[in-house]
């Protein structure tokens, strides 16, 4: 589904990604872990199409298409979703407007008719219930005045409504208490199926207790230094990231 080969990228003139290789197949959940500043968020933003992040080398294929040639909005319509680490507040733009516009953009790209207003509301309410969100959400501006946890739930809600083929969740677990973490994990797990894939970018092993990954990668210094199964995450927690860097050098 996703094939990243030798990806290099710069942010504000500084090289952050220095040759990332990663392949994610349909049905799989991958976790990308790594210390602060290792390039995890940059990778997520580059994949979503952020313009001020400059790709200087390498390629990314998404379902056989050249992902890097598409603008952000077309990547989204093709089925890629980024759950933001810090979702932005957009006062004055209603949550429901945004979601409806997003869903309709996707449907239009797929040649489907616009969603019926009544059905849409029913769909949102059902997903909100799953995410244990208050109905006041419906009348508020996008993420406006939301707590950190509410913002993350909103990201997962958007994902559930848009049903992407590939979801990249950038530290969706950070700042969540244990109850919120369970809710968010349940939301992500409900989307798991053989046709979809999930990439979890995370700092902590804790999330992987609830969303069990097929593969775990360690990103450090702009490269993936080590890949393994879930036990790698547990080992990282026990031994820290220095262990990976040192073993690589040795």
């Amino acid at each position, binding site marked *: 589904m996703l094939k990243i080969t030798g990806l290099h990228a710069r942010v504000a003139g500084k090289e952050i990604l220095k040759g990332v290789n990663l392949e994610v197949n349909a049905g799989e959940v991958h976790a990308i872990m790594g210390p602060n500043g290792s390039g995890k968020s940059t990778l997520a933003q580059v994949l979503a199409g952020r313009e001020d992040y400059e790709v200087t080398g390498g390629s990314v294929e998404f379902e056989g298409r050249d992902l890097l040639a598409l603008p952000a909005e077309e990547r989204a319509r093709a089925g890629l979703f980024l759950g933001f680490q810090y979702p932005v507040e*957009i006062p004055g*733009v209603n949550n429901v407007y945004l979601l409806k*516009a997003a869903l309709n953009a996707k449907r239009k790209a797929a040649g489907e008719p616009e969603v019926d207003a009544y059905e849409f509301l029913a769909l949102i309410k059902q997903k909100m219930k799953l995410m244990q969100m208050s109905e006041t959400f419906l009348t508020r*501006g996008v993420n406006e005045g939301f707590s950190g946890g509410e913002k993350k739930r909103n990201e997962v809600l958007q994902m559930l409504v848009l049903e992407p083929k590939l979801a990249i969740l950038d530290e969706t677990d950070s700042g969540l208490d244990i109850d919120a973490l369970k809710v968010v994990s349940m939301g992500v797990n409900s989307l798991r199926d053989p046709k979809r894939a999930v990439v979890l970018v995370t700092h902590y092993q804790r999330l992987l207790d609830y969303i069990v990954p097929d593969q775990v990668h360690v990103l450090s210094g702009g490269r993936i230094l080590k890949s393994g199964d879930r036990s790698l995450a547990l080992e990282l927690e026990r031994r820290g990231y220095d262990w990976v860097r040192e073993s690589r050098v040795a």
Partner: protein
Amino acid sequence: MSLLQHSSAAAARPAALRSFEAQWLGRDADALSALREEAMERFLRLGLPSTRDESWRYTNLRHLAAHGFVDAPRAPAGSLEPTASLCLLGVAERVATVLVVNGYPVLPSSIDLSFNGIEINSLRELSRTDPGLVSNYLAPASDADVARWRLLNTALFVDGLYLKIGTRVETPLVILHLSTAEVPDTVAYPRVIIDASANSSAVIIEHHVQQGELTPLCNSVTQLRLKRGAQIEHFRVFATGPKTTHIDSMDVRQERDSRCKQFTIALGGGLVRTSLEAHLNEPGACLDSYSLLVGHEERHVDCVNIATHSAPHTRSHQTARAIASGSSRVIFNSKVVVDAGAVQAESQQSCRGLLLSPSAEIDTRPQLEIRADEVKCAHGATTGRLDPDMLFYMLSRGLDRETAQSLLVYAFLADVLTGMSVASARAAIENALIAQLPDSQVLRKFR
């Protein structure tokens, strides 16, 4: 009422000034003549404001100075019917529309008209029957440059509207100001006086539009007095064509516990200059001023707001949103003055500008002048482009760029729109506004 003492300097005066003087000399005497003469003398002595004057720094009127102006025509009653497209509110939603053409009200023959608690009079008639009442409103404004054009209006307005609000009026009253001319270089002096009785309330919408290609130079003045406990929501909406020059001065005086919501909305015109001078004269007076200034194509919008707190426990909030696209320029200057003794005064100035093109310009300047202790005054001003993080967030959800940008522009205006308490007025203004924003087709879908 000769102004001969000025004649020696007359040759050096710009053509515009000479033509204003000629208009003055051609006016018939009326009960207000003494006050008018004083205003005219002061105007001629002070001259046209220039960019050296504090409140005119950003707006140069030099192009007017070389023109000689004559009075814009008075339209006979019934000869002009504004087309439906000019009306802001649907027929069912307004209590009444009063048509004013080039400053002259077009009223049925009776001089005492009442619409559900609003008494409507012609200023010309009223200055015959009750000159004392009108004189009260013509007391000379200061020499301040911000009030300069008001002096000229006082000297030269021939007719106008006097509204007395006697009770709580539920539905809005629209004053449709129609500008029209058959020849170039005409000038109009619309004058509106609104007198809100104690504990009365009303929504008044002054809507400036044009009919035909040519328009007069418009020098309009609105005075609003709120007696004890009165609540007035006043709109002035500028929606004329791109060649119009409009200078509008507004003066608000508030008594104890009165509440004024004032909306200044610039959606049209070539050069629009508006001023608001609000005087919070007694304790408990509250002013909420909202300015929504849309610079479009070549438009120049200059808005000056001054709120003066002269009593304790007064409150003023000013919210301004400026958008500039094309090669337009928008200026917003607001000032809060807290007089000595106006303790516990509270004021806020929030001004935000949004630049939509590289050749547009926005200048904002909030100012404070505090002569009292124990006051709470806050101000903030920012100008920038669309937030790239917000834009990327929406793009990453699959919205196309046009839609995302339009929604962000619209959201930027939300703080002003949500202040409007009459749904029909808000909807009408939103409609007119959307037509001026980029990608208006896209935006209409989201309303």
